[in-house]
């Protein structure tokens, strides 16, 4: 098997295992770490399937931004006593039922035609993404700016709200 396949399946296994770990971990910090490893694995998969920019963006945004935010969240909300309270499950059976049902549904009905790969999978380039972003996708691009501005302002007001004693 070529080196490429080996790395692909290595990261594939990494992502799958860390996702499953996330399901069974008891300690919230370990969960955060598992999530981090899963996201990094996914970034690697992106790069392997010729979406380098997406992979880098994944590392920056997800691994850098979201996981850090989550860890801040954990620290802020879990400080009752020294060690963090263990995560308990509720209605495990129901959740598993739903998950497996969905998984089965998604797999059972896929047709082969979906997965045929074209012959020449030459590398798409970042330069093409740049052009596309500012021609076809210019509206979503600008609107996301507004979204970020308004939503984060909103989040800030909620988070920083101290019940003004009036």
């Amino acid at each position, binding site marked *: 098997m070529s080196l490429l396949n080996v790395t*692909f*399946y290595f990261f*594939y296994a990494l992502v799958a295992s860390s*996702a*499953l770990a*996330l*399901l069974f971990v008891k300690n*919230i910090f370990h969960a955060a770490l598992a*999530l981090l490893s*899963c*996201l990094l694995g*996914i970034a690697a*998969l*992106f790069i392997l*399937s*010729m*979406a380098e*920019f*997406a992979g880098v*963006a994944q590392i920056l*945004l*997800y691994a850098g*931004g*979201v996981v850090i*935010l*989550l860890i801040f*969240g954990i620290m*802020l*909300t*879990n400080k009752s006593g020294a060690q963090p309270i263990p995560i308990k*499950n*509720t*209605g495990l059976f129901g*959740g*598993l039922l739903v*998950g497996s049902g*969905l*998984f089965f549904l998604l797999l059972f009905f896929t047709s082969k035609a*979906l*997965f045929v*790969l*074209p012959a020449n*999978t*030459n590398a*798409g380039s970042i330069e*093409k*993404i740049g052009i*596309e*972003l500012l021609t076809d*996708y210019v509206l*979503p691009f600008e609107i*996301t700016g507004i*979204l*970020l501005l308004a*939503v*984060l302002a909103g*989040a800030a007001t*909620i*988070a920083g*709200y101290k019940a003004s004693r009036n």
Partner: protein
Amino acid sequence: MPIQPLYILSALLLSIGLVIVIVKRNAIMVLMGIELMLNAANINLIAFNQKVPMSVDGQIFSLFVMIIAVCETAVGLAIILQVYRHYQTSIPDEVNELKG
């Protein structure tokens, strides 16, 4: 890279994300579950984008998804903080003021 395994991975991630959201008794964990589900979608987008190498729609869409994911996490955490301040717990199920 072969799309079939990637598709299976994304389906797996989606299911696991959903299970986490439903099962876990900690709001932050639920957020993580949501992140997983969003990533599952991203994998799918990138994988299927390989079928049309000339266009990069899939990748751009996944970029936007990432940005939205960040916003969601921000808002989610803000709310969870406030809930924590009021209820002194982040276990969603104990938050049951509204009934009926």
